[in-house]
């Protein structure tokens, strides 16, 4: 999505970021964080309870409140002012309020320009909607184009078509839109469900040095928690384990799970792994385990996109059947959990190509486990999907493969890159580089390719470089006799007039 200010400068949703930055140099960009938005929605629903007992999040940024019975409470105008005041306190200063007989006309009322709130008279929803364009209706592009081509441009024109005719010509989608245009909407706010807390605390009575001595206590705590989760058809996504020493909390660790689980054995292994990665520094007398994030149990396959295939080897250690696949999945989960706990989520990565011409931007490392694919802890009905797109290669590999073959996609030799590039001194003779001082000694440049000149990224960190591949050697012997040959990637930075070694070809 993009703000109205950005839209005025020619930015639109779905545009490539590099194109957007080229169009508008002072563009501000933030990565989509569905979990953050879901948490903000949940918090704001709780805040709006001050105005009405029945509140629900309808869509992202849209909330339904029950506005009935306001006669003795100051009227509907006071309600609107209160809501805007509360929204302003929470930081949402551009909010708009709409009041009508049902959800859809109220939603349309919030879109009236230059009005912070708009109240549709009782029983007048259809009349209010009649003069408004059909853009407000939730129509697919094809149905919208069809209606427009038939000359149906307002909702009033649309509702004049008989119901049976709408169903026959435009299907169930058209019928649903027809109902909305008449002001009928069954969406209702409801009394919010309080956040459930899954917590277990044990006072051990005396100081304990190592967790090994109390693993059976942790196991029973986790058994109880997972049973509570199972009863609510929920799965844990994140644990918090706190250690106390005489009422003083000295260690609190948050453990995100590789994938949601309500398996006590897995959770026990996760707690044990966390303690192996970060041992306790003191004795503890009490222990508390809290499920800080949970989600609905969904009976589907793992979100890890690649399940390992077991080799069909007669000497294989696991049989290639359902039991083996379950064990392998558990092994994979445990392995990923170990890596996340000890090294972080960026330790296990896959190489992904990127549609950029600068060598350092031509690819990126994508974490095998992506935080964004984990579902958020929300307790409202969210119509929008929370999955984010993991793959962002945008490389048209078929096009390049057809044109050039593999050499268009993958370089010839593997480069082992220096991060950051190493500054070097280059000696010239008759206008061309002849020697380079690298790794503490001088090397003769035996062969040097013609430069590849690249520039760009002016909106961020401008680059103007000439890249060369150089074959260097410590001796000035003829090319047929190489003493200690090294193939380097070096570049000349035009702005600073300096030379750097980008890396070594190996």
């Amino acid at each position, binding site marked *: 999505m993009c703000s109205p200010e950005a839209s005025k400068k020619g930015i639109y949703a779905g545009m490539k970021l590099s194109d957007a930055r*080229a169009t508008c140099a002072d563009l501000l960009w933030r990565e989509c964080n569905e979990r953050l938005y879901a948490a903000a929605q949940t918090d704001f629903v709780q805040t709006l309870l001050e105005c009405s007992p029945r509140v629900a999040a309808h869509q992202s940024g849209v909330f339904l409140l029950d506005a009935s019975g306001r006669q003795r409470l100051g009227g509907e105008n006071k309600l609107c002012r209160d809501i805007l005041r509360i929204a302003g306190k929470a930081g949402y200063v551009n909010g708009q309020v709409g009041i009508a007989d049902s959800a859809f006309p109220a939603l349309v009322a919030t879109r009236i320009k230059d009005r912070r709130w708009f109240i549709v008279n009782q029983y007048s929803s259809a009349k209010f909607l009649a003069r408004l364009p059909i853009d407000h209706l939730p129509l697919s592009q094809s149905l919208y184009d069809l209606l427009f081509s038939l000359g149906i441009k307002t909702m009033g024109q649309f509702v004049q078509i008989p119901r049976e005719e709408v169903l026959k010509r435009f299907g169930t989608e058209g019928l649903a839109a027809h109902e909305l245009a008449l002001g009928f909407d069954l969406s209702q706010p409801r009394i919010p469900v309080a956040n459930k807390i899954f917590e277990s605390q044990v006072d051990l009575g005396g100081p304990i040095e190592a967790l090994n001595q109390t693993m059976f206590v942790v196991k029973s705590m986790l058994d109880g928690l997972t049973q509570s989760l199972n009863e609510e058809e929920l799965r844990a996504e994140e644990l918090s384990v706190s250690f106390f020493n005489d009422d003083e909390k000295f260690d609190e660790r948050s453990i995100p799970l590789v994938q949601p689980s309500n398996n006590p054995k897995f959770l026990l292994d996760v707690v044990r792994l966390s303690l192996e*990665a*970060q041992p306790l520094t003191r004795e503890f007398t009490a222990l508390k385990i809290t499920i800080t994030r949970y989600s609905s149990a969904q009976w589907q396959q793992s979100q890890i996109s690649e399940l390992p295939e077991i*080799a069909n*080897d007669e*000497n*294989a*250690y696991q049989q290639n059947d359902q039991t083996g696949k379950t064990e392998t999945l558990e092994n*994979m989960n*445990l*392995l990923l959990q170990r*890596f996340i706990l000890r*090294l*972080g989520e960026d330790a*296990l*990565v*896959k*190489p*992904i*190509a990127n549609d950029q*011409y600068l*060598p350092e931007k*031509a*690819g990126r*490392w994508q974490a095998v486990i992506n935080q964004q694919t984990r579902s958020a802890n929300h307790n409202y009905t969210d119509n929008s999907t929370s999955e984010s797109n993991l793959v962002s290669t*945008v490389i*048209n*590999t078929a*096009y390049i493969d057809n*044109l050039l073959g*593999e*050499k268009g*996609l*993958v*370089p*010839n*030799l*593997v*480069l*082992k*890159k220096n*991060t950051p590039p190493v500054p070097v001194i280059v000696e010239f003779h008759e206008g061309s580089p002849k020697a380079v001082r690298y790794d503490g000694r001088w090397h003769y440049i035996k*062969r*040097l*390719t*013609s430069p590849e000149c690249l*520039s760009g990224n*002016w909106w961020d960190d401008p680059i103007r470089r000439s890249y060369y*591949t150089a074959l260097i050697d410590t001796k000035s012997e003829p*090319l*047929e*006799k*190489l003493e200690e*040959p*090294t*193939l*380097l990637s070096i570049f000349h930075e035009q702005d600073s007039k300096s030379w750097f070694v980008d*890396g*070594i070809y*190996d």
Partner: protein
Amino acid sequence: MRSNIATLKEHFEQLFPGKWLTKGLNKKNLQTGLEDIDSSPSKGLARKRITEWGGAASSGKTTVLRSVIANWCASGLHVIYIDSNNKLIPSDWAFIEEGKEGGKPAGFSSSKRQLALVEPARAAGRFWVVRNLSNNNKKHKQNAVWAAEQLIRSNLFDVVVFDSSNSTPLSSRLYARLQHALDASKAALLIVKDHEITSSTQSNWGVYTQLHFEWSTPLVCEDGLNGVTSIAPKIHGTIAKDGLTNNIEVAMNSYAANRLFTHPQISDRRTSKARTAFKK
């Protein structure tokens, strides 16, 4: 007792090929696709063993290894690469799982074509990389060895490549620890290490096969309009196992890289006034 019998069988197999090893045992060796390695005394690279893949810092060893890894992925094997010094760049490895490895050694027999005829529906193997190993208080070498051990023990990967180049060599004690992990696993461990040309290339205890690579002449230079556009030296190597040594010659196919992208470079369309304002 069983391991002694297995070793004896392997020795007899070298003397009288095709008579001593069963079909299942043959699969314990990973075929690289390089004729010189696959027909050497080691018959490829052994699972459950440590193979040393060494050479000077710039010797072509990682380029050859990339071709071999692409071959393994095309064969359906899962490979993980521990980049302990964060030296790899993703654009060099982005298409490995699709079997595209860039500069291919001449005469390389890719498994992809052969496999496609036999098992067209077989999925390609996985290729992952472990990097950013300095994330906690422990040193990155300690983390790298831990990662290698965990990956071997997990039994989820067929090949674990440990790139320890540019860092202090692993001690024999660490080799023993990794071998102990391999004994209970099906994986093969490749340790990529840099040797200085003048120093000894003696391997550590526990190394089953040792490969060493270096650039050699003649060079293959691709000429363009204004001079040389690419340099591809020949790669010479040796493979040693149980005192037996074989030579390896790897010639890279000539190759002129073209940076071709589906979108042109984005030009700076701002006016000079806007550029000055932006700089301020």
